[in-house]
């Protein structure tokens, strides 16, 4: 590597590394893990930060704007976040609130059912066993600098009900901040839990969470994420899920916000009959860029994976979907399905999509599909011929397209919350 390459990347990488050097003594958890992660991050920098050295996993998403920005740690003073709290979906669920990456007990509810234990990374730091900082460099960054995060565990056979996990980012008088929450959610055998995770904020910030999910045999985890970050923010999340025999991880991600967003999911089906659903929708406008990247690994026979991702792209926005299904030699009777659909609503919008199959077992049923196009002209004509104005007709058809995606969310309360978020987006972004 030439010296010039290293120096041109220096600001951000250097900034993160400098922060690590300055605060490493105060950071919780295993110092060796952090030091290793720092070495990895130093060696690899930000993926996709510079053209010409881009890793395949970052082919369509450049982190150059992140590399060029200069982030500081959030101020520790207790921020006033009443305005942000007011923007949360009004769903009446018990909530766990993080502000600028730190747990705020004063804003969070307690009183969860017996068998559900809640803690934080700051209190009991544990990096877990699923994250791969050596492979995913944003995870190396997180491992190096993580300060807090939620730790939820649900005991054997307990139904933990539904809760809301909230990540807020406050405007810090023009400072660009970065925070790297480390979340861990564990469901023991036969347990159930449903989570609505909301990320929103104001100002310029980098929200770089890493989440580890362990779903033990027969357990069921439903995880709906609403990403409605500030349009000036960066949201780069990485999630690892390990799903055991007969267990289900049912996930839905709705991406509305952020200037640059990446939702990366690595799901491993490790036991017979495990199921994973990774569904999602992205609504983008202006110069937003949002990327959903998934890797589903079938490591056991008879597992099923389902993915349906829908993109609605207007303005100069760019949507990215990279989905990979890996089927191990022993994973016979695998049923894998993946569908990516994109509606391009403006001449400057772009979709890039890479649905990938890597199959080593012969008795499998795997398929993927992708469609890209504009609104159906016949359908538009039908509506207009019945007197519906163009704008309204377009809106109607786009809503119908999205409704199909949201159908994957079965919990009515949560679904209503997502619908409301889409409606708000709609009001601010007339097509």
């Amino acid at each position, binding site marked *: 590597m030439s010296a010039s390459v290293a120096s041109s990347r220096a600001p951000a990488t250097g900034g993160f590394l400098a922060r690590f050097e300055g605060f490493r003594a105060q950071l919780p958890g295993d110092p060796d893990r952090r030091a290793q992660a720092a070495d990895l991050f130093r060696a690899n920098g930000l993926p996709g930060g510079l053209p010409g050295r881009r890793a395949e996993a970052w082919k369509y998403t450049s982190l150059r704007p992140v590399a060029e920005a200069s982030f500081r740690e959030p101020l520790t003073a207790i921020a006033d976040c009443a305005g942000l709290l007011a923007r949360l979906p009004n769903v009446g669920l018990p909530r766990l609130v993080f502000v600028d990456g730190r747990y705020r007990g004063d804003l969070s509810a307690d009183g969860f059912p017996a068998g559900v234990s809640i803690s934080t990374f700051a209190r009991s730091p544990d990096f877990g066993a699923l994250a791969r900082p050596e492979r995913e460099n944003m995870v190396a960054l997180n491992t190096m600098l993580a300060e807090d995060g939620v730790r939820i565990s649900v005991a054997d056979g307990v139904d933990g009900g539904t809760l809301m996990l909230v990540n807020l980012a406050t405007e810090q008088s023009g400072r660009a901040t970065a925070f790297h929450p480390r979340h861990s959610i564990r469901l023991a055998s036969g347990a159930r839990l449903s989570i609505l995770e909301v990320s929103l904020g104001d100002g310029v910030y980098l929200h770089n969470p890493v989440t580890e999910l362990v779903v033990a045999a027969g357990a069921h985890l439903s995880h709906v994420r609403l990403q409605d970050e500030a349009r000036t923010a960066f949201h780069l999340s990485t999630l690892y899920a390990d799903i055991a025999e007969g267990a289900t991880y049912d996930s839905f991600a709705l991406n509305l916000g952020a200037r640059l967003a990446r939702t990366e999911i690595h799901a491993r089906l490790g036991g017979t009959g495990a199921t994973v659903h990774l569904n999602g929708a992205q609504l983008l406008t202006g110069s937003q860029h949002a990327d959903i990247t998934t890797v589903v690994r079938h490591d056991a026979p008879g597992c099923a994976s389902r993915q349906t991702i829908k993109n609605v792209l207007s303005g100069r926005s760019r949507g990215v979907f990279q989905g990979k299904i890996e089927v191990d030699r022993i994973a016979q009777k695998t049923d894998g399905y993946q569908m990516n659909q994109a509606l391009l609503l403006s001449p400057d919008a772009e979709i890039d999509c890479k*649905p990938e199959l890597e199959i*080593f*077992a012969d008795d499998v049923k795997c398929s993927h599909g992708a469609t890209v196009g504009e609104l159906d002209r016949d359908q538009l004509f039908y509506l207009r011929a019945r007197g519906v104005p163009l704008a309204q007709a377009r809106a109607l058809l786009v809503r119908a397209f999205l409704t199909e995606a949201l159908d994957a969310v079965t919990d009515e309360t949560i679904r209503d919350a997502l619908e409301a978020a889409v409606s708000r987006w709609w009001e601010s972004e007339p097509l």
Partner: protein
Amino acid sequence: MSIAAETLDTVQEVTGSGYKWGFETDIEMDMAPKGLTEDTIRLISARKEEPEWLLDWRLKAFAQWQTMIEPNWARVDHPPIDYQDLHYYAAPKKKDGPRSLDEVDPELLAMYEKLGIPLKERAILAGVVPDPDAEPERQIAVDAVFDSVSVATTFRATLEKSGVIFCPISEAVKTHPELVRKYLGTVVPAGDNFFACLNSAVFTDGSFVFIPKGVRCPMELSTYFRINARNTGQFERTLIVAEAGAHVSYLEGCTAPMRDENQLHAAVVELIAMDDAQIKYSTVQNWYPGDVNGVGGIYNFVTKRGICQGARSKISWTQVETGSAITWKYPSCVLVGEDSVGEFYSVAVTTNRQQADTGTKMIHIGRGSRSTIVSKGISAGRSNNTYRGLVRILGQAHGARNHTQCDSLLIGDQCGAHTVPYIESRNPTAKVEHEATTSKIAEDQLFYCRSRGLSQEDAVGLIVNGFCKEVLKELPMEFAVEAQKLLAVSLEGSVG
């Protein structure tokens, strides 16, 4: 003898086991010493009596190649290639023109026989002065590339009458320098990629086809490629230009003798279609795939690309890939012209330890451009078969349309089938559809065939042929029969 009958004969021989094309012709070769330096390139250029501009072009490519790094993104695995351990030029030693076939090196004739070239053509190919009154009986013109030198081109006179130029590219450099200079490297620039760049520096021969305005080529054009000498890389270069309204169908067959060492093949094919022109390029690739344990076999690293320059032009690639230890090949279409059409039909079969990473790129630039991709991958044994394709719709490609279908069939539980499509669209009026499936041969289909008295292998052959039908029907008739049999032969022993 009719082509079909001939093909059937070939098939009879084929159905004996092993690699039928694994013969080696022992004839005197004129070879460059091993290694690649500027001197090697000067030697090639001098042997071919090339003009200065072409030597400069080669040297420039060589300089660029030295700065390039071998790509490693394909899903193939092989020991590093020592580019200095190859001969970059090998030609049969030239003797003065024989008067009759009796004077021709019998080894060479035997080889033509094995290649299935009829007697009359053999005489022409071997350089026997032809009888000027003889009428061609068979309407396929052959340009055989024997290692690096295009030995002879048949039926040139007939073609010339209609204005078609079909000759070795080394000859075209001398006889039609203005055409070669105008088009060479315009579709695949010298520095396009590592292997194309190497080819640009050291290419030794290949075919040149020029179809003038409004001419429909009166016969199918055909080239046989063979790699004969040990440790030679074959770097042929093919350039096909179809002027406005011209039509041509070009067949390419590849076989190589059985070898222990891996041989390198890095070809470049460039196609140019002007307004309303149509080029159909069909390949049956059956290079030596190596043995059951993956020893030997050809490394086939090929760059094929066509440009639909003119409005309503059409380029169609059809390939049946059964050979080579490693295939790295992405025949592509750049659809510049309005309403231009690109097509890619592919069957790739891998068995034993073969590795194939193949697919296509469709770059939509022109308004109303359309493309169709149909890819059928069949993996058996311990092989890996990857479809890798790109569909890119640029902003100005209003109303562009693509439909892609890739299906993979797995035979046995030790092989791998992979699909890596890239879809990029920047135009809302464009419509792109992609479907891919992976499955194995259904038990009920097999049971149905078996219960009607077919053997396991015949049943699999039948099902595989059905699986590939969409592609095979795109092949010219001469190739279709052969391709079907090739599929069956390739999969022999990998079932049950």
